[in-house]
């Protein structure tokens, strides 16, 4: 049993409410869509991670009687992205189970090229043959996807209704920020931590990475190796866990481990990346 990750609950609900208010003000003509667009983009960038934590039960800490918080906050957080928490949950579990396996990892299509391919491939979705292979091996996977589809269709339908009445406002405050944010998320949450994407195994499929920009711009996805080793550690606590597990990570030879500094908390981790080019 873990702790309530109140920070992520706050981010999930906060960004979603901010986005809804922004969209409402823009549609009502009280706010310019040119002001609404950057606000919506920032909201959309923060929309996935709270759902991701909910997918692992890390919002409620898997506390009995409080587990409803995970799908509840997770789904509210995903409204700006027009995604179903349930669909993302079942597909994400397959990503964890088969990371970097081209035949079973539902996110592997982002690894077949540079960051531009990752930015585009998120909009194509997982490959049909990968979904079919997972469904064949695990009937509950197909059931889980089917269970989440009504929400996805509902949000897609709402977008279509909105665009008929407010075409440009819907485009600039909903569709475009959502599309750009999903590209950003797939680059830094999927492609960057798993580059070059050809190594499998718990201690090989994820790497420690850095850039010349502070980690806060990438929602600290530099600590993604901790998440893949221990998915039930709350995202907010991953820097602390990385400091504690650093000797173990180095000993295991996890890619990039030798570059992990002793202090990760409050460290922007600014450094040139040394990853093999894709």
């Amino acid at each position, binding site marked *: 049993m873990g702790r309530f990750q109140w920070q992520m609950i706050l981010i999930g609900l906060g960004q979603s409410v901010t986005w809804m208010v922004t969209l409402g003000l823009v549609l009502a003509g009280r706010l310019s869509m040119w002001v609404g667009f950057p606000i919506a983009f920032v909201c959309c960038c923060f929309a996935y991670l709270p759902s991701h934590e909910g997918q692992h039960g890390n919002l409620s800490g898997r506390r009995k009687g409080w587990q409803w918080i995970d799908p509840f906050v997770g789904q509210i957080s995903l409204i700006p992205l027009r995604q179903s928490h349930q669909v993302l949950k079942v597909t994400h579990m397959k990503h964890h189970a088969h990371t970097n396996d081209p035949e079973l990892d539902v996110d592997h299509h982002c690894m077949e090229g540079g960051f531009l391919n990752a930015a*585009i491939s998120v*909009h*194509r*979705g997982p490959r*049909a043959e990968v979904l079919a292979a997972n469904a064949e091996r695990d009937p509950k996977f197909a059931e889980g996807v089917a269970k989440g589809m009504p929400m996805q*269709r509902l949000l*897609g339908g709402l*977008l*279509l209704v909105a*665009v*008929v009445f407010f*075409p*440009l406002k*819907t*485009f600039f405050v909903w*569709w475009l920020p959502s599309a750009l944010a999903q590209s950003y998320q797939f680059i830094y949450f999927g492609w960057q931590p798993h580059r070059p994407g050809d190594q499998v195994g718990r201690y090989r499929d994820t790497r420690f990475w850095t850039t010349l920009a502070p980690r806060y711009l990438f929602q600290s996805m530099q600590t993604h190796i901790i998440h893949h080793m221990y998915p039930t550690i709350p995202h907010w606590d991953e820097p602390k866990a990385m400091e504690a597990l650093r000797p173990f990570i180095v000993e295991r030879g996890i890619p990039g481990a030798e570059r992990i500094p002793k202090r990760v908390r409050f460290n922007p981790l600014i450094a040139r990346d040394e990853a093999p080019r894709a």
Partner: protein
Amino acid sequence: MVEVNPVELPRTSAVQRAITLVLAHIDRWGAVWFGFVFWGSVIFAAARRIWPDAPTPGVLAGSLLIGLGGGLAARRRGYWL
């Protein structure tokens, strides 16, 4: 031979059948409708801003056709980009 109690057979109402048909249609033609409605509307609104004096029916028809064409292409390819 397995005996089936007709009372226990799942009964589908006309509404359920209609919903199933609509969902199947969305699965098959969703990209085309998305292109027609979404991109058609956005292109039309943008065109009206760029060419405010152009005849509305022509601009609307052109916009919807472009959206429809994009949707058909996306359906054929299996993805948009």
